[in-house]
């Protein structure tokens, strides 16, 4: 048992480190280091522009989408090398946020189901950040129940005509392409009537409307489709096989190994170490120490669970399921930490101005943003179902709509 690199891994790490040291946009280092949660904002520049420049530089030197084949813009690297790269990229990895859905979900789906021509045409530009992709799955009527989606695709000659609405689409407003799942047959049970496509987000009839969120930011969008035409050549997988194709997409979300999950703990430990309360230093208080210790072992438990997964990769083995707990643990931790930090501040905890507030408003921001961490990318409840069913082998929930034609499923309760 050790934490050492193999000689090959060490050589790869040194090469990556040297390149990053010589090429990273260091003017943003301090700003990037400070942001620990949610979307990153830069003071003077748009994150997408800075991100695109960094991604392009990486792609030119062969450091983008490392695990992809070279002919599609990658490096053909081993999974462990990708993890090492992420460790070395450090805070600059935050600049890759606009590309993560494309790299993690859309790209692998095109790779699995696209034609050779598609792959050569779209993947290298996706890898280099020149073109950004978004994922058009969720709908107002289908969040956790994705297969309940209602957006229609109807065949007209060699084309498909799309009508409907998607929601919670991160980055739709700056995306060039979208991966779209739509209903092609409402007369069969819900999982069987879906088909996967990709489309140009500039197509006539596509309208992107930003959603103002509970934390007053705007990162998600609604996307409306009115008679949008998609050529049949942009279909991925067979007609009616969209559900299986979407599972490929979602499986690729495993990419989180090695990527840092924000828990809020390092910020909280520092805050409590320095905060003077009416009863002395916060960290000297018994109740606070107990909470800190509980969060500390969760944060370290997540860290070492990811080390176990990395060790499996290092031996070219598939990681076990231990990494599936990450977002479930981190999401509610952020929320609990934010609330307790504000509690320690007393009456002034309500204030958000960086000038008045002890920790520059970071916990207030965490409070307002953390609910989304327990919902986006699978709610806490869906994640518990996944652990229960896929890891522990418990039976799936009984689904009353499973064998019913989609157009016969009730759409309202009560």
């Amino acid at each position, binding site marked *: *048992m050790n934490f050492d690199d193999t000689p090959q891994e060490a050589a790869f790490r040194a090469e990556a480190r040297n390149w990053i040291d010589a090429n990273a946009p260091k003017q943003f280092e301090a700003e990037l280091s400070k942001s620990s949660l949610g979307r990153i904002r830069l003071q003077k520049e748009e994150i997408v522009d800075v991100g695109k420049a960094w991604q392009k530089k990486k792609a030119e030197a062969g450091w983008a989408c490392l695990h992809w084949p070279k002919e599609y813009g990658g490096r053909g690297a081993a999974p462990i090398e990708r993890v090492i790269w992420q460790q070395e990229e450090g805070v600059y990895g935050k600049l890759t946020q606009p590309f993560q859905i494309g790299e993690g979900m859309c790209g692998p789906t095109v790779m699995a189901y696209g034609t050779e021509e598609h792959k050569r045409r779209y993947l290298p530009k996706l890898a280099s950040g020149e073109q950004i992709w978004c994922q058009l799955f969720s709908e107002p009527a289908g969040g956790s129940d994705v297969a309940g989606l209602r957006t229609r695709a109807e065949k007209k000659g060699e084309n498909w005509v799309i009508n409907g609405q998607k929601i919670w689409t991160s980055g739709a407003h700056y995306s060039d392409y979208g991966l779209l799942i739509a209903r092609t047959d409402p007369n069969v049970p819900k999982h069987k009537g879906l088909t996967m496509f990709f489309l140009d987000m500039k197509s006539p009839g596509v309208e992107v409307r930003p959603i103002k969120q509970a934390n007053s930011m705007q990162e998600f969008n609604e996307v409306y489709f009115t008679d949008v035409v998609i050529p049949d050549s942009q279909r991925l997988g067979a007609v009616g096989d969209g559900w299986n194709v979407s599972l490929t997409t979602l499986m690729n979300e495993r990419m989180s190994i090695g990527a840092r999950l924000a828990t809020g703990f390092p910020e909280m430990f520092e805050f409590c170490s320095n905060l003077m309360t009416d009863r002395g230093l916060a960290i000297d208080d018994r109740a606070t120490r107990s909470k800190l210790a509980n969060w500390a*072992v969760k944060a370290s438990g997540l860290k070492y669970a990811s080390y176990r997964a990395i060790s499996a990769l290092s031996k070219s083995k598939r990681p076990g399921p231990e990494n599936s707990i990450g977002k479930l643990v981190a999401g509610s931790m952020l929320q609990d930490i934010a609330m307790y930090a504000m509690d320690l501040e007393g009456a002034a905890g309500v204030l958000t101005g960086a000038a008045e507030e002890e920790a520059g408003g970071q916990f207030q921001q965490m409070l307002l943003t953390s609910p989304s961490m327990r919902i986006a990318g699978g709610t806490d409840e869906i994640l*518990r*179902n996944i652990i229960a069913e896929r890891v522990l082998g418990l039976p799936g929930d009984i689904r009353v709509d499973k064998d019913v034609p989609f157009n016969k499923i009730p759409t309202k309760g009560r």
Partner: protein
Amino acid sequence: MNFDFSDEQKQLRDEARKFLAEKCPPKAVRVVLDGKEPYDRELWKGLADMGFLGVAIPEEFGGAGAGHLELCVIAEEMGRALAPVPFSSTVYLAAEAILLAGSDAQKQKWLPLIASGDAIGTLALFEGKGNPSPEGIKLSATGGSLNGVKKPVPDGAIADFAIVAARTGSTGRDSDVSLFLVDMKAGDVEARTLTSVDPSRGQAELAFRNCKAEPLGAAGEGWSTLSQLLDRAAVLIAFEQVGGADRALEMGRDYALDRIAFGRPIGSFQAVKHMLADMYVAATLARSNCYYGAWALSTNASELPEAAAAARISATQAFQHCAKNNIQVHGGMGFTWEFDCHLYYRRANATALSLGSLSYWEDALIDRMRKKNAA
């Protein structure tokens, strides 16, 4: 990175699991639980024959000389099987104390007896309520003679020798504490068996009256040795706790698959599934913290104090969480004497206190993290 046990160590785990499944089924645990025997003598002998008692004892002292990673592997299996033997007191506490502070003669005398299963040892630290602290040690040592009362002492009534923490000074410093080794066969220690929430493991009160004792380690070094000893034992007991937590989770999972209510397996109800998923989360966090503890223990890393506290807290929480919710998944059957759920519940809550309570280790972790941050 190779943050995992080796193939040989995993083989050892399989071997230990197989051995314990055969020699230590729940009905063997119940013989001790029911008070028919103070511990499972046959199992103890078997563990010696397998080489498990001396797995981390150097070969020159009659052990297998493997190491502490191997001991962690065995510890997990002992916890999983709820082995009703004085393993933790003899191996994690007594043998480790001798290895840390014993003279060559003491090592020569006691370690081979431990490895062969011919000597049971323990640590007599606590004196009633409270957590480990130099101030809590009142038992006096004057002129090599001990006076005072220790309780609870794990396996105190069956021990052949005890490591005893005693007060040898009154300066108010840690150096007021020294360790002694007492041969219980000499007959001047009065042992009284105590009842506890987990009768599958023994607890005793030991009364020392002008009792002859030999020093273990230098005078005034007792607290320093104890601090190291408790950290080392915390990692090992954390592995026992993780083993117990995993088994309780499996029992709950198996029952949820088997038990039908409202016309379906109860494991298909989200309320039950989510409870089991949370048990898995707790057990996974604990196991991951324990691996770090195992690394720190086996390499004697400077991170050991922090790693040990994290492993201890995480594993205590996980075992308690899994054991109590295992009963919950079983419903009324889980509250019967007949079902084994309460065995895990008892052991979880007993081990949670065995080296100091959860709050003691929480304090320790925060202190150690602050010290590291300040450095």
